[in-house]
């Protein structure tokens, strides 16, 4: 798995690879000894298969913004007062990523 992550990092940071042709990337995958299954998923850009093969979390939620609502004070200076008045959230265990 770490070879594939290494490869993805190299693909992302190497200007000679990031937008290279399929044949160049295929050659780089071969040099990196990526398994045929993973190579096929990478070549297809099949993120779901990649996630499953690597044991990565799927359906990751990426939203970290919420719009204002009527009950939120329209004056930005009053947001802090309202948040301070709310009680702290309950403790929820967070997963450690292996």
């Amino acid at each position, binding site marked *: *798995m*770490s070879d594939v*992550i290494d490869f*993805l*990092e*190299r*693909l*992302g*940071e190497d200007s000679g*690879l*990031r937008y290279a042709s399929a044949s160049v990337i295929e050659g780089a995958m071969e040099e990196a000894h990526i398994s045929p299954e993973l190579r096929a998923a*990478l070549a297809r*850009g099949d*993120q779901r298969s*990649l*996630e499953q093969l*690597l*044991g*990565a*979390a*799927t359906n*990751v*939620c*990426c*939203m*970290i*913004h*919420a*719009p*204002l*609502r009527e009950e939120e004070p329209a004056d930005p200076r009053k947001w*802090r007062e309202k*948040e301070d008045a*709310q009680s*702290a*959230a*309950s*403790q*929820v*265990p*967070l*997963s*450690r*990523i*292996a």
Partner: protein
Amino acid sequence: MTLGSHITPLARSYIEKADIVFTALSDGIIELWLARMNPNVRSFQPLYKEGKSRGDTYREMVEAMITEVRAGKHVCGAFYGHPGIFALPPHKAIALARAEGYQAHMEPGVSAEDCLYADLGFDPGRYGCQHYEASQFMLYHRRIDPSAYLILWQIGVAGDQSFARFSTGPQYRQLLVDVLAKEYELGHEVILYRAATLPTQEARIVRLPLRELPQAEVDLHMTLVIPPIHALEPNVEIRERLSALDAVGEN
């Protein structure tokens, strides 16, 4: 934004040197990548649940981070893109930490917005560019300038008033179209855009007439780009007043 491509050296250093790293990232593969930079990485993903208000999720995120700060640890929050753009918990966590006397800092990152300009090939400075969160745009009266670009973020949950949904459907997007139709013709070309998060991907760019937005395939990562529909209208009065200043050599 893209694995390997867009992490800044300084951001990476903060991640590597922190006692604990909390993450809210765009996908699971990036979680695996980032987990290799520090032995103590905690994902915020368990805090999300469809049906649960994201307001509660964000409060829990802030609480998790400040708890570790209070315990004397060097805490890093790694959020996808830029941690301060369309991102509530990082700002809240920093404000709270500073209010309690702790040092806290936000390091800028490469955001989906930055990728959008590069991938779609337009300069926000040319005609101006307005940004709104899609639901906020629907829930409030906003005055927009149709001679500038209009970017609506989180189009995948447009019109969600509960903050508990991971998607809203065609009928919600139709209401958005109804709002936009006050300024834009239904045949006006708009763009659905999604930045590449893995280096195996290209950006997803779908051009379609505004009227087809409700039926389009839209996910959580997508953004709606609406190009200008009117030309810029010269402000003759101000131009004349500026020229008068120029004539007398005023600063």
